[in-house]
């Protein structure tokens, strides 16, 4: 950047630099404005609710204008957790297969259906969930889980099909392409020399992958998972069609629940009282904060772990 003639080049560089700065700051400004706007709309809520009270109470009563966000926060976190638990192993495995183990042509062919999955609209996923996944869960999977694992509180209760498990499964399918496509790109950037060095030292193919590819792409994979998590937290239509829309907290995965984006989508159009609208805006703020905290937390975790055993990146 410092080489080259001063004068014109410097001005061009500086202008370009300036433009990038502006664009970067604009993103922060837009995010800040969104938060500010939501906070302003949520102000009527402050009359009878404290912030802590709003976050930790469970009662959601539009008639009495008394609101609590806990059930929705719980539902959002649970469905996101289920989707991550189901999608991440499959996604990483699929990415490894596409980049390391499959013949190149097969790898390229496999990315096509994965990218198609990303293009399917959310409401279509919801319909698929409602008509295919929910009856399948209600008739086959949930009774089986209840029968053999019913001693775990996660698998207790009547199998109705709709609920956390259904939404988690559908979300897993929805975030899979996100995680796979980014992971594949990251894994492809692993220098071949690292892998070949490992193989030369006598590692098996699997060991070479574990020693050379995974540590190199770890940060990128975490980034991919966070992208997927972000989508899972914010997904609205597909979730509201299969989660049962019941504001309750239950330990069982078979139970119906509710999520933050689902309740906002369902109730916003008809909400007339300012407190009700304020409560929904408050839920939006909570969703924003949750996504931000999870992202930040994951990045901190990655940096902390990276400083440790990963000596490959030096």
């Amino acid at each position, binding site marked *: 950047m410092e080489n080259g003639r001063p004068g014109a080049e410097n001005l061009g560089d500086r202008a370009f630099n300036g433009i990038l700065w502006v664009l970067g700051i604009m993103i922060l400004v837009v995010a800040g404005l969104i938060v500010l706007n939501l906070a302003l709309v949520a102000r009527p809520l402050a009359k009878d609710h404290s912030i802590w009270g709003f976050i930790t109470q469970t*009662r*959601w*009563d*539009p*008639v*009495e204008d008394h609101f609590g966000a806990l059930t929705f926060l719980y539902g959002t976190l649970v469905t996101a957790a289920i989707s991550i638990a189901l999608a991440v192993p499959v996604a990483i495995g699929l990415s490894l297969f596409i980049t390391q183990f499959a013949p190149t042509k097969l790898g390229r062919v496999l990315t096509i259906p994965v990218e198609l999955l990303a293009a399917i609209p959310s409401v279509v996923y919801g319909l698929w969930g*409602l*008509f295919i996944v*929910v*009856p399948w869960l*209600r008739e086959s999977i949930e009774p089986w889980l209840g029968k053999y694992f019913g001693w775990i509180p996660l698998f207790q209760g*009547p199998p*109705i*099909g*709709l609920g956390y498990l259904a939404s988690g499964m559908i979300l897993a399918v929805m975030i899979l392409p996100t995680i796979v496509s980014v992971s594949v790109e990251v894994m492809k950037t692993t220098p071949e020399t690292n892998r070949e060095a490992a193989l030369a030292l006598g590692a098996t193919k699997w060991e070479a992958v574990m020693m050379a590819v995974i540590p190199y792409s770890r940060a990128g994979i975490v980034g991919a998972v966070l992208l997927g998590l972000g989508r899972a937290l914010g997904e609205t239509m597909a979730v*509201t*069609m299969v989660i*049962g*829309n*019941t504001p309750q907290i239950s330990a069982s995965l078979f139970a*119906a629940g*509710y999520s933050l984006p*689902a*309740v906002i989508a*369902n*109730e916003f*159009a*008809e*909400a*007339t009282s300012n407190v*009700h609208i304020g409560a929904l805006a408050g839920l939006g703020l909570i969703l924003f904060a949750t996504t931000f905290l999870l992202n930040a937390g994951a990045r901190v975790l990655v940096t902390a772990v990276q400083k440790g055993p990963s000596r490959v990146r030096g």
Partner: protein
Amino acid sequence: MKKLLMGAALLLGTAASAQGLLINGAGATFPFPIYSKWFSEYNRLHPDIKFNYQSIGSGGGIKQFTDGTVDFGASDAPMTDEQISKASDVVHIPTVLGADVVAYNLPGLADLRLSPANVANIFLGKITKWNDPAIAADNPGAKLPDQAIAVAHRSDGSGTTYIWTDYLSKVSPEWKEKVGKGTSVNWPVGLGGKGNEGVTGIVKSTPGSIGYVELIYAIQQKLPMAQLKNKDGNWIKPSLEATSAAAAGVQMPDDFRVSITNADGKDAYPVSGFTYLLVHKDAKDKAKGTAIITFLRWALTAGQAMATQLDYAPLAKPVREKALQKVDTLTVQGTKISAK
């Protein structure tokens, strides 16, 4: 370049003159099919007048009307006193009737009967199984399975919910105290479905489920409907005639804001309700105001015949006449518009 500009100006000019009058409205989803039909028919008869209606929900309709962003609103629930205080010149004009039916999924049981107490207790979560003795008492001789009742309700705010909870508040003091009535309530039990379609979907696909949907959906989706006991003590099968009968026996107040759930009348279906168009008492815009008034007159006369074709219950004669009288009192910039 000049030719291009002239051509563009000519095009815009013709477009503007062919525009005609556009009247915007928004509100309830329940009457959307009949309003759509009315607006398109009316446009056919009066090609220079076009109505644009967005079915965003009763609450949205009230809000947009109060804010003045639309020329008229539509709502299943009449505006509350608090809402009227913010839009003091609103006039409610009833257009058609709707009814909520109890749809259920119990294969093999054709004619389920539910007394008001049982309906309330099912939705309160106090009756949890189909073979509960209280339900058996309403249905002597019927084979009721030992199955859990899966209750379905609306997850979005809606006029359908308002009519339903209004009925439950009238027949069950416990419901009135615990839950109350509204377009969105704190349901004690049940799964939430989005829209009438959502509840229909839950009921159709979940064995042992029960839910409330608009009569039209139940008829068109061929859902089994339960018979309810009306105030006079008769078991009524939900139908368009029974819905109209509910309105006939009611003492209509001047502002038409009345609840006709649990109405008197031997043939009255107990969970019926009006749907209203919300208009200004005195319209500011001459063309739009006149058009709205003439449309209302048409809707309350010729339009009513189209209602039954689309499975809506038309207004009974006394209500219709009273509504027409009300329309006669609407003014445009201070002057009344006489019926031609």
